[in-house]
């Protein structure tokens, strides 16, 4: 088999990214949408780390920041989800069409 190059990693990352986008666009369940966003972030991370293999450590540093970001996003996102569930008893995105309740 051909040796693994950076390009291989990029292809995996792209696949994950596309899967994440499809998930965000098509799923109704907020939890799954949030998880799809995590998928996208991970795809980005894989890209960053793969590039850092070529150009040095900065990519890894940035991916750590992305993970931090993901943690913050998950916390706030799930907090909103709980608040929303409490008020509307649903977790479907297409029923969240009011900016207030």
């Amino acid at each position, binding site marked *: 088999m051909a040796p693994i190059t950076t390009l291989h990693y990029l292809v995996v990352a792209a696949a994950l990214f596309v899967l994440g986008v499809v998930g965000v666009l098509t799923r109704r369940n907020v939890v799954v949408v949030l998880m799809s966003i995590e998928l996208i972030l991970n795809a980005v991370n894989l890209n960053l780390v793969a590039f850092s293999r070529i150009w040095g450590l900065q990519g890894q540093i940035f991916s750590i920041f992305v993970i931090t970001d993901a943690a913050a996003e998950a916390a706030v996102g799930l907090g909103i989800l*709980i608040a929303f*569930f*409490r008020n509307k*008893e649903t977790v479907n995105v297409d029923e969240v069409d009011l900016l207030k309740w």
Partner: protein
Amino acid sequence: MTDATKYLSRLELGQPDQTFLDSNELIINMGPQHPATHGVLRVILKLDGEKVLGTECVIGYLHRGVEKIAEHRTYAMFNPYVDRMDYVAAVSNGLGYCEAVEKLMNIQAPPRANYIRVILTELNRLASHMLWLGTHALDIGAITPLFYTFRDREEILKIFEKYCGARLTTHAFRIGGCQYETYEGFETEVKKFLKFVAPKIDEYEELLTTNRIWVKRTRDVGVISAKDCIALGVTGPVLRASGVKWDIRKAQPYAAYSDFDFEIPIGEKGDTYDRYIVRMKEMRQSLRIIEQAVGKIPEGPIMAKIPKVIKPPVGEIYHSIEAPKGELGYFIVSDGSTQPYRLRVRPPSFVNLQALDMMVRGALVADVIAVIGTLDIVLGEVDR
């Protein structure tokens, strides 16, 4: 006057607004098969996460119709049945029943019988409290005290066995006195036991009283005020831990209790820790009573003069004693025949259990276990 009446042990379902997440209350069946309900008690818990919103006790799994059986047995024949109610304190049950019938027939047990009764009943109180301590500690997670208490309770059961041949459901007393004379060496053996058990009680206290986790788990858990206790009819150590200095042994002495000098330990706050301390002190007081009694058992007959066939006159009687769990009462209606017309048992566990709901509302699941343990219920008595 009381708030206690507001706490009806009924579970209102479907009030989602009380929970943290709305509409997400959890209904849990604790029991009838559960390691910590001391038998076949079933408690339906309504939970908000870990917080208890309400409880409902479902009892009766062990119902045997003792009161109905009593109406079809003669007075003497019914005597062994009472042992099967509170089977960890069978001697106390027997004492209460025998004294009630004696009172109804207006006879007195001879002093020697009364002394033997006191000694055995207090030994039984010790055994009951030991069993309570072991299982209560086990419920809270301390597994070791259980084995210590069982080791020492064994000695008491040995004395019972030597006295009347049975260990648990003793049937030790008869109407009118005691069936058996004390066996040879009874007094020395009891004295030996007293010497043996006093340091053991210290040992239990050493394990638990100052244990930080134990104190944390029991302090301010299941608090019940004296007022609520009285309104809910809660008696025994639970009532005393709330600060009411009331013990039937002192208030309305029966058997030979008026002869002895002992104190009624009381608590202040009425929380689980106070109840623990009160029971521990009670065990020491029991030792004191036995110590006084065993030295001066009077000579004389052990049976009063009673007719061959027990036929109490027409009338009603209510007699109660201080069982280890609280006020154990017998209400007997006699129609002059050899069988009770109606016999009602006032079981302390049954009435005390009613306070469970009030004590655990707003507490956590773990507290329910602690409170069930601290109420010291025996399902044989609750369900009868």
